[in-house]
């Protein structure tokens, strides 16, 4: 590598401005991020009725981005004081404290005894990355287990932290629900003391969540296996509309006495996407250990970006600590979650009304912003080309992009592109179709697990 690098360099002592430098010749064009690539394609499409069902950013029923009222109120109260670096530490501590209360429960022992180490983070991504680096530093030979599928950036995050990853079964392509037995099997077969990444609610990209009972069984097995659960909490409040309900999985693990870590994001549930606000917390034995762990987390973030920006931290801190503004926020979260639930129901009804014989139950069974539609790659491409509807290649639909005005069109388009699936099903029903040939990657492959990394 180094030799070829030198061969490429023009070694010359001339200072002529026409000399060509070639330092970056070997730098290739990076692959586009798969989720952003969808947005790029959407933006490039001149069709006036195009629809973006790609990025998981909430839209109102007019298809517009929303700045929550609670955010505007908090902003009015903050003023310019947050620029003074002397107050930054206090505000950051407040953010951590309030975030921890939100996810672990105000009355939980870990909160009362302050048995957690936390730092503000650059939203969910930043929190995951700091944890991945921390995991690498203190468990250099460890791996991380991801559910199959998971958010496409998880692999990059732990990868860039030099932590190898494995997967555990999660999504069942036939039922379009949870493959619970296989999941438990994989958890059991993993070496004791493995690190697992879990989505506590509104799994991304499938929208498939374990039930409370299933979470309890998972937690018990984790206890036996001494695994470390790391929760990526990107949608607290967005799944059911109730922040307490959406934290159930974590509360179950807390009850079982697990030592856990959490990456919290306020991008979606507070609509603060661009401000990059989140929190990384790790449970500890006591306050003393919390101080030590926090110092390590800070050291990792100090070499990456210093500290997260104060504006977003101030906003979240204000929203969570001011009772009136917090009450407003909780109402607004419920409105957002409710609209999405309504769109799920409407889309499913529309497909059923069109007479689709395919099973669309998963649209309403699945939870949160995303629906794992089961559409094949070919069908997704057809939706983009013919109907100007954009989603990620794995068939993930961001329900936040569905509105009262466009839901019928979306349903019709999905109905159209699944025509051959319907034919297959009809033929199957009348017994004419002898064998359902397993055809991975082909038109009949409905695994939806072609997640692009």
């Amino acid at each position, binding site marked *: 590598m180094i030799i070829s690098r030198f061969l490429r360099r023009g070694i010359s002592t001339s200072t002529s401005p026409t000399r060509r430098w070639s330092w970056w010749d070997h730098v290739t064009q990076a692959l586009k*991020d798969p989720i952003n690539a969808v947005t790029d394609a959407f933006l490039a499409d001149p069709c006036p009725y195009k629809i973006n069902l790609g990025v998981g950013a909430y839209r109102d029923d007019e298809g517009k981005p929303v700045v929550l009222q609670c955010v505007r109120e908090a902003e009015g109260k903050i003023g310019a004081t947050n620029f003074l670096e002397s107050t930054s530490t206090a505000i950051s501590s407040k953010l951590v404290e309030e975030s921890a209360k939100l996810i672990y429960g105000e009355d939980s022992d870990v909160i009362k005894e302050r048995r957690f180490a936390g730092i503000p983070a*650059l939203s969910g*991504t930043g929190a995951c990355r700091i944890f991945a680096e921390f995991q690498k530093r203190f468990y250099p030979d460890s791996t991380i287990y991801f559910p199959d599928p998971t958010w496409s950036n998880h692999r990059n995050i732990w990868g860039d932290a030099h932590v190898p990853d494995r997967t555990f079964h999660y999504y069942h392509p036939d039922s379009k629900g949870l493959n619970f037995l296989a999941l438990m099997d994989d958890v059991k077969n993993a070496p004791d003391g493995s690190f697992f990444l879990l989505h506590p609610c509104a799994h991304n990209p499938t929208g498939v969540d374990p039930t409370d009972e299933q979470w309890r069984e998972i937690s018990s097995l984790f206890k036996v296996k001494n695994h470390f659960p790391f929760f990526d909490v990107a949608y607290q409040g967005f799944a059911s509309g109730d922040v307490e309900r959406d934290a159930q999985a974590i509360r179950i693990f807390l009850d079982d006495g697990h030592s856990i870590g959490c990456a919290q994001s306020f991008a979606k549930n507070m609509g603060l996407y661009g401000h990059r606000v989140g929190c990384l917390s790790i449970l500890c034995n006591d306050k003393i250990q919390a101080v030590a762990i926090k110092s390590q987390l800070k050291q990792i973030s100090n070499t990456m970006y210093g500290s997260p920006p104060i504006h977003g931290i101030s906003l979240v801190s204000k929203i969570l600590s001011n009772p009136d503004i917090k009450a407003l926020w909780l109402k607004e979260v419920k409105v957002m979650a409710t609209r999405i639930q309504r769109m799920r129901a409407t889309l499913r009804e529309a497909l059923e009304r069109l007479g689709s014989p395919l099973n669309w139950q998963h649209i309403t069974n699945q939870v949160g912003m995303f629906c794992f539609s089961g559409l094949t790659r070919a069908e997704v491409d057809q939706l983009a080309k013919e109907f100007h509807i954009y989603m990620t290649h794995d068939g993930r639909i961001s329900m936040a992009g569905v509105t009262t005005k466009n839901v019928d069109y979306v349903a019709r388009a999905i109905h159209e592109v699944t025509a051959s699936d319907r034919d297959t099903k009809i033929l199957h029903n009348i017994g004419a179709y002898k064998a359902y040939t397993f055809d991975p990657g082909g038109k009949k492959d409905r695994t939806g697990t072609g997640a692009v990394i």
Partner: protein
Amino acid sequence: MFELFCCLQPFGRVSMVVASNVSRFEGITMASPDPILGVSEAFKADNHELKLNLGVGAYRTEELQPYVLDVVKKADKLLLEKGENREYLPIEGLAAFNKVTAELLFGADNPVIKQQRVATVQGLSGTGSLRLAAALIERYFPGAKVLISSPTWGNHKNIFNDARVPWLEYRYYDPKTVGLDFEGMIADIKAASEGSFILLHGCAHNPTGIDPTPEQWGVIADVIQEKNHIPFFDIAYQGFASGSLDTDAASVRMFVARGMEVIAAQSYSKNLGLYAERIGAINVVCSSPEAAARVKSQLKRIARPMYSNPPVHGARIVANIVGDSALFKEWNAEMEMMAGRIKNVRHKLFDSLSSKDKSGKDWSFVLKQIGMFSFTGLNKAQCDNMTNKWHVYMTKDGRISLAGLSLAKCEYLADAIIDSYHNVS
């Protein structure tokens, strides 16, 4: 563990009482405190009425209060009124910000900008921008070293260490002259293996305050070209050194004018007081627009698994200020005022030292050094005396932040320095 599991019903609930987990992070020790930020903490804990904080390079007014620039308050108010959305920025950051930040550094009419040969990506202030560049170096120039000045900002080494980029030092500070060891610097840059990255402070060197002259910059550029090195500028104080944004960019522009490919990290922490908003940029000047596009794509590839996309607020503030001619003019004026205050303080300190010290020691380095910091030449024991006896807080390398000094306190500081220099070894 395995035997225990066999006894349970498959996936049945464990009914036995399990002792609360011993944390798997038992063995984690306390990280060593940051040497610079630790000074502020010690200062806070001190109750002495004459205490003076000359630790962190954060600008203070003559009344020693933090300062929010008027132009920033205006820009912030405008943002509040506009009520723009909070959607994700693209991975490379706010386009309007990227445009103005590159223009500010290279000059709007610079051919490299017109020819689209600069890959600019918004970063989390200077630190974040340096880290993106370090990751790029690690990925595409494995084994290549970064040469950093001795001394340099404390976090440089940490950034390159965590990015797994090896580094070496080149001589810079000459304690005998309390000035630049130019010959040592040139010799060390020459001696480095071909194709090394040379980290240079564009202006107002941190921690010494000692900058090369324009002629010296020319020779440094010669040697870098000769050895096929790549210049890597850290520009954290554009505007703060001389008071002029253009003048302070002269070194970078000289290298770029020679047709060199250059990396440059920028920060708006000091010159716009936006410390807490974390706004900066990494720029890579390439030989072609096509190379710049490729490099930019790889910087994005590095940023996505770090934080996905950068924060919007600080970017909008800078874009609004630099992009609006009235606000930009105002900023220039405030910049001159801040840099001017520091220059005045330097003069007062120099006058106080010269008049109080009868030994004939040459204190003129205080005037020759530039920017927020001054390397006093005091050793660790002398620095300890500064703190313990005089309650003057500074970093142990002898660096004082003049941004934290008022005209009113110059005489007191002079007494402290003279005492420490002469009476402590």
